[in-house]
């Protein structure tokens, strides 16, 4: 499969701070690639390097099999991006902003094309309005619009759902899936929310302190790991006693007032539930948590 982005040993230092440290990553054609990490992990710095906003201290970036440094303009013609929050010329209309950005990119800026893009992001009725009157969500949509205007092969989205309401988040997710499935775009999606990436991405990487923590397909990463499952039961003492005489004892992580935390594989959850019921212990709830999710939450909390 063709590599669309190939990053090797990418490092960015700001004086004494190393924002990105020997980062490697590969994005393949057709991927929806989740780029995960807590705030301050180096996601935006990496994206800024991919978009030539900042210069790497060392390492190499290849996009579409070509060195970004030597083929910048040719490569950027095929990329659409939102880098952090989308800011526009507030004193100009949404239409004029897209027209100007399109003209600079040298792409089709006909009325038909601009209105088509505005319609795609749901802003066709506000095309005349000055951007300074737009809400954050509307600016995000316009940001997506400018990223799609020149019909790019690769779309880089830096936290595109930040500040959106649940409905807005859902619409963006649907748009990402549409772009991937119907228009065969490759999408690089940065986020600090695992669940968001899980819903749309097929491959992902988690970075922290500018370095890769884990990389692979979403399926592999989420299923390969054991689940931490909390069983809430009615008789905790009796449950403890019964469990101590069985093989499930080895799977126990800890006890709470009414909860028992197990480290299980997905298939074992149903068997354990059946076991409790057979023993006459009522199970009030079963709450699974994947260890990757917990691990990521820990990272996020430390990052925050």
């Amino acid at each position: 499969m063709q590599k669309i982005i190939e990053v090797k040993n990418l490092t960015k230092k700001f004086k004494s701070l190393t924002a990105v440290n020997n980062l490697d990553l590969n994005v393949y054609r057709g991927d929806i690639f989740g780029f995960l990490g807590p705030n301050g992990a180096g996601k935006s710095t990496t994206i800024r390097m991919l978009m030539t906003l900042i210069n790497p201290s060392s390492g190499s970036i290849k996009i579409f099999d070509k060195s970004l440094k030597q083929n910048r303009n040719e490569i950027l013609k095929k990329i659409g991006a939102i880098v952090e929050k989308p800011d526009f010329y507030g004193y100009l209309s949404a239409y004029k902003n897209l027209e100007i950005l399109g003209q600079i990119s040298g792409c089709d800026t006909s009325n038909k094309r601009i209105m088509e893009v505005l319609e795609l992001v749901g802003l066709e009725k506000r095309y005349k309005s000055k951007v300074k009157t737009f809400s954050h969500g509307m600016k995000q949509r316009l940001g997506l619009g400018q990223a799609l205007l020149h019909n790019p092969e690769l779309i880089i989205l830096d936290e595109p759902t930040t500040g959106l309401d649940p409905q807005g988040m859902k619409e963006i997710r649907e748009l990402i899936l549409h772009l991937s499935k119907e228009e065969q775009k490759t999408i690089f999606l940065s986020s600090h929310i695992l669940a968001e990436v899980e819903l749309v991405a097929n491959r992902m990487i988690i970075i922290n302190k500018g370095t890769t923590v884990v990389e692979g397909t979403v399926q592999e990463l989420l299923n390969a790991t054991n689940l931490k499952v909390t069983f809430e039961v009615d008789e905790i003492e009796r449950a403890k006693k019964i469990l101590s005489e069985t093989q499930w004892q080895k799977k126990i992580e800890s006890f709470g007032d009414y909860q028992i935390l197990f480290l299980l594989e997905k298939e074992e959850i149903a068997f354990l539930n059946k076991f409790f019921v057979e023993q006459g212990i009522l199970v009030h709830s079963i709450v699974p948590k994947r260890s990757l999710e917990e691990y990521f939450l820990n990272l996020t909390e430390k990052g925050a």
Partner: protein
Amino acid sequence: MYTLVKIELYKIFRKWRTYIGFMAIGVLVPVIQIAMYFQGAHYLEFLTRNFKDNFVFVGNLLNGYLIAYIILGSLTIHIPFLIALVAGDLLAGEATAGTYRMLITRPVSRLKLVTAKFIAGLIYTNLLVLWLAVISLGLGILIFGVGELLVIKDAIIIFAQNDILWRFAFAYASAALSMSVVCALGFLFSSLVENAIGPIVTTMTVIIIFTIFSAINIDFFRTIRPYLFTNYMSTWHLVFDDPVNYDEIVKNLLVLTGHIAGFFGITLFIFKRKDILT
């Protein structure tokens, strides 16, 4: 490049601050002209008080040319502020608004983007000087009519009516070049920071300090004067000498052009390497 310059000009002229300069000149010059219309005779009398005993002045000396000459002399000190207002915002304004990210991620080199912005800034600067010319000379002639131009420097020089317009054209052109240096300086400072206020204030501070240094007649300041660009900004005055010292004018204009190229070169150097963090 044409499209980029067109876009930059569009952005400049869609901002309210752009019109401050045009409005300031559009209000200030007519106010001076009206004041001169009513009290110009006293002013002229004051101007010629030392020569009254030896000369008899005849004809329409208080004419559009004299008014334009006086206005040009006084406003070239203040116009740099109006230029800095726009030039200081050209790059820093994009940083403040966060639009750098949109702009620089387009498939156009930074060199082209910066050059287009600079050309647009120069066009604005020259339009402002042209506006000054139209208002002060054009309106002045309409109100006061034409006549001979009386210039008092080390000596009294009276230019014949048919020997004046080309001098004004030359004077406005060299004033435009001087103001372009201000534009280039403001643009340079604009590339260094993320807020437009800094470049505007810094540009004006540099001009004020250099102008003071240029004006103080002490040996030390006389020694450094040739190295201060402000020393060459009043080159337009030399056009109203008789005979005109063309060598001096050409040298001065080359120095000013060199400053424009130098400031722009440094801006390019800085901007090509700049990490966009806003």
